[in-house]
């Protein structure tokens, strides 16, 4: 039997959030955390709310805080997170709760939008496609794979304190994805939008983000590259 403690909150009816305990029969199997949530919902309490879609680590919708660490419930095995037979599941920290484990991602998306996450090129389009050397293409590895699950940004203290002004690791990783793209010609414009003391420079390099990314990406490293680009631009 697994002891599962779930964060429950329904802002319309509850005065304050509370934790609700369940005992879940895992049949002795090393299930994924999402499987456990499905068991709770189907057998114990159908009112539990959470997001999920692909259940294979692709869509990024079930980012949760499991025993204190952010991750995707669908690809996190119990053996990786359960301590002393207990599993505590909370919503991603720092974002407003809509209900139970479902958070309002508006602030997160607003920051993503700020970095203009699309290719900008002012040259006339070629006949077929814009070519890139294999070396230039390689620069995008470790950047384009992000699924915007928000595990990183919601584990970042700088994002908790200034989510309106600090772009956060997810947004900055995407920002660098376009700064590093040889086909993008808006590099200077992009950089000038990042010079203020908040957008990039609120990152203090503590690497909380890199330690939770379920895709194994490293936003801290990308942010380091952005800082170097800003420094060489200012010289």
């Amino acid at each position, binding site marked *: 039997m697994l002891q599962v403690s779930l964060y429950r909150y329904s802002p319309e009816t509850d005065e304050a959030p509370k934790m609700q305990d369940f005992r879940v029969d895992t049949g002795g199997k090393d299930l994924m955390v999402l499987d456990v949530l499905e068991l709770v919902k189907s057998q114990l309490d159908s009112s539990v709310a959470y997001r999920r879609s692909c259940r294979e680590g692709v869509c990024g919708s079930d980012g949760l805080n499991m025993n204190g660490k952010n991750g995707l419930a669908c690809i996190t095995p119990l053996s990786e997170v359960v301590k002393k037979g207990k599993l505590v599941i909370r919503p991603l920290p720092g974002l407003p709760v809509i209900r139970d484990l479902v958070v309002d991602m508006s602030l997160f998306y607003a920051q993503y939008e700020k970095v203009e996450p699309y290719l900008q090129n002012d040259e006339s389009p070629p006949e077929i496609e814009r070519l890139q050397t294999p070396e230039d293409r390689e620069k995008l590895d470790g950047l384009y794979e992000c699924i915007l699950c928000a595990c990183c940004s919601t584990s970042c203290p*700088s994002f908790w*304190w*200034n989510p309106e002004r600090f772009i956060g690791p997810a947004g900055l990783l995407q920002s660098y994805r376009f700064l590093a793209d040889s086909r993008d010609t808006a590099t200077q414009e992009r950089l000038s939008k990042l010079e*203020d*003391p908040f*957008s990039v420079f*609120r990152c203090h390099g503590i690497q909380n983000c890199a330690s939770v990314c379920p895709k194994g990406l490293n936003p801290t490293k990308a942010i380091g590259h952005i*800082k170097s680009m*800003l420094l060489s631009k200012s010289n």
Partner: protein
Amino acid sequence: MNVTVFNRSGISDWILQRASSVIMLAYSLTVASAVIPDTSYEAWSVFMTQTWMRGFSTLALLAMIAHSWIGVWAVLTDYVTVRMLGSLGERLRLFLLVLMGILLLVYLLWGVFIIWGFI
């Protein structure tokens, strides 16, 4: 609200923060290497009143002031904000920044007087 002098841009803050820490480190090592072999007041006094050392002390003082201002400004804009404290956050932060500004100004004047022997 960016109530700050050293806040022209995130880049200059970032460079200044790092440059000032290097200066402070170099200063600490210089003082330590001169004082540890001979801890008498005479040796200390002779060492500290050389003109180049007075200049270096002034530079270290300026570095300390810049470093503290940027650091405190960053901490206050993390924790003393509307998000954390409601509308009080804005006023309290302004108050603390002014307080910090006055404190640093006093340190600067006082430090310069001590270093150059005006008192």
